[in-house]
């Protein structure tokens, strides 16, 4: 803080330095030699101020995470204290070992992982295939069909969840992973995202490959797929995170405890033991960690995926 104030003062001095008659005094010249030009100086000061603002802002926005982490390392009766303890008096690491026996956390994690991996693989595979058909093969009716895809993106999922549920009930698929896989693996959004990307790949490339004797499937596998790695990564990451975080799907379809995902397990834990504040926070931290890791590895693709498609499933 003191530094910032000094910087601010310095700018004022240098700003006021040039004399009215325009002749720089000896002292003035020495000052400009020693220091940066006023303009640069001003910019530096501004940067310091902005850094200060940003740090305060980000810390304020991260308070829920900080609080979550800190509470996960406390005893239950230490969580909601007056005044707030930001750093636990003593670190209760045992929360992180006890939770695995308190609730079947490992099973929940496995279920979430299983669903997320299967749905992501199917979505990326079928999505990129369909996107090739929609962008690189010309045939009658193609654009009308694509319009049907786009049209359903605009319909809120909640508006057709009941018919979906009836259908799954008739097929006898409620209370199984298959219901969720079938409902989520063929999303129109994945096709849309991949097609947007394929449209930016010049048709000449496919044309050249065709002349070289590659079949359409060969072009998809050997020309288009390698070129669309960033889009594939975006779609895979977005689908994975969406499936991992999904609450309503598992909530509607998965009734037996052994099928529950992390989100359902955590929610039911909160419902049953609502005074176990510390353990609830431990569970929350564990449910967020996989997403944090994936996000840190692939954040570039997340941001790109959002900026190019501008939407999310």
């Amino acid at each position, binding site marked *: 803080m003191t530094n910032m104030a000094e910087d601010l003062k310095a700018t004022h001095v240098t700003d006021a330095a040039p004399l009215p008659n325009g002749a720089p005094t000896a002292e003035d010249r020495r000052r400009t030699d020693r220091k940066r030009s006023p303009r640069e100086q001003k910019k530096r000061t501004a940067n310091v101020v902005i850094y200060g603002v940003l740090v305060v802002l980000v810390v304020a926005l991260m308070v829920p995470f900080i609080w979550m982490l800190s509470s996960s390392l406390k005893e239950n009766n230490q969580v909601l204290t007056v005044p707030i303890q930001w750093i636990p008096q003593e670190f209760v690491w045992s929360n992180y070992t006890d939770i695995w026996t308190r609730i079947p956390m490992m099973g929940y994690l496995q279920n979430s992982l299983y669903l997320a991996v299967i749905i992501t693989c199917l979505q990326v595979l079928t999505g990129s295939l369909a996107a090739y058909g929609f962008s690189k093969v010309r045939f009658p009716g193609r654009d009308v069909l694509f319009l049907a895809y786009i049209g359903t993106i605009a319909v809120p999922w909640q508006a057709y969840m009941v018919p979906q549920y009836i259908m799954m009930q008739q097929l006898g698929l409620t209370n199984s992973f298959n219901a969720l896989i079938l409902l989520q693996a*063929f999303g129109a959004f994945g096709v849309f995202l991949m097609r947007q990307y394929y449209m930016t790949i010049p048709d000449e490339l496919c044309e050249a490959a065709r002349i070289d004797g590659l079949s359409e499937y060969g072009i998809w596998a050997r020309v288009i797929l390698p070129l669309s790695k960033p889009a594939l990564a975006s779609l895979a990451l977005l689908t994975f995170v969406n499936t991992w975080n999904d609450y309503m799907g598992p909530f509607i379809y998965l009734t037996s405890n052994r099928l529950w995902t992390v989100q359902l397990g955590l929610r039911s834990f909160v419902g049953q033991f609502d005074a176990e504040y510390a353990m609830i926070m431990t569970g929350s931290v564990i449910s967020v960690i996989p997403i944090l890791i994936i996000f840190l590895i692939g954040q570039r693709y997340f941001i790109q995926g959002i900026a190019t498609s501008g939407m999310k499933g």
Partner: protein
Amino acid sequence: MTTETITQAPAPVHSRGNRKQARRNTLIGWTFILPNFLGFLAFTLIPVVAAFALSFMEWTSFSAPKWVGLANFQRMFASDSFWIALRNTVVYALGHVPLTMALALILAMLLNRKLKGIGFFRVAIFFPYITSLVAVAVVWNMLFSPDSGPINQFLGSIGIANPPGWTSSSDWAMPAVIITSVWRDMGYYMVLYLAGLQAIPTELYEAAEVDGASAWQRFWNVTIPSLRPTTFFVVVMLTVSSFKVFDLIVVMTNGGPGRSTTVLSQLIYQEGIGEGKFGYSSAISLVLFIIVLTVTVLQFKIQQRRER
């Protein structure tokens, strides 16, 4: 359709070969689309169409489907649950849309500069958006704890004698939900605004500066007009997502206390899947869809008029 393709085809050999080529293309195209299309048709397209038809039928888990015309809608408009849910949904949207938009824009303006480590700040602000909703809801519920929660302790420390009861009070539960959702969503819309800001040519700002425009004037006369397409997109996305709000409410308040935070999506779930009134719940779905569609079309019209 077929004739169209033939005229479009690049190298005109004789027409029989062409027709054969077109048929081959159709076959190839469909094989690419089919794996996705089968799933899409069965589990998205058919349910969407079915939802329309169902809203004019009476069908429960105990009775066979029967055509009843507008009876579901009459019952819906006479039910106060529907009006309460609609009102709550609108209140949520009125809070969520402007707050998220304003904060996302402010954050984007702050973060739209070349500084060392700026990427870290952007990523940190974006992270809540992809954090699991249950974790978010659980943490905020505790932060909002009326007696000794951090938020009310903070409010107390700045001299607010009777801080609100948040999720335990029917007046303050909705604001609590809105605050949580704004916190969660603003990073996402910030990314959209950042992309918009970066597309503004710097010459515009330089020219404005030469003309002696102040920072505030540059904001109103250069930034805001240049961001219009982004803002349009953000408003549409935000409004649509507000009317669809579902999981956050289910996890955070489950519609309570009382019915103070019950929203349309939740009503569809309760009536349709909870109680098995398939027809009646589809009528509510149709209303939700029409609202979302109207909002989108309206925004498009406004945008078009502005551009002219």
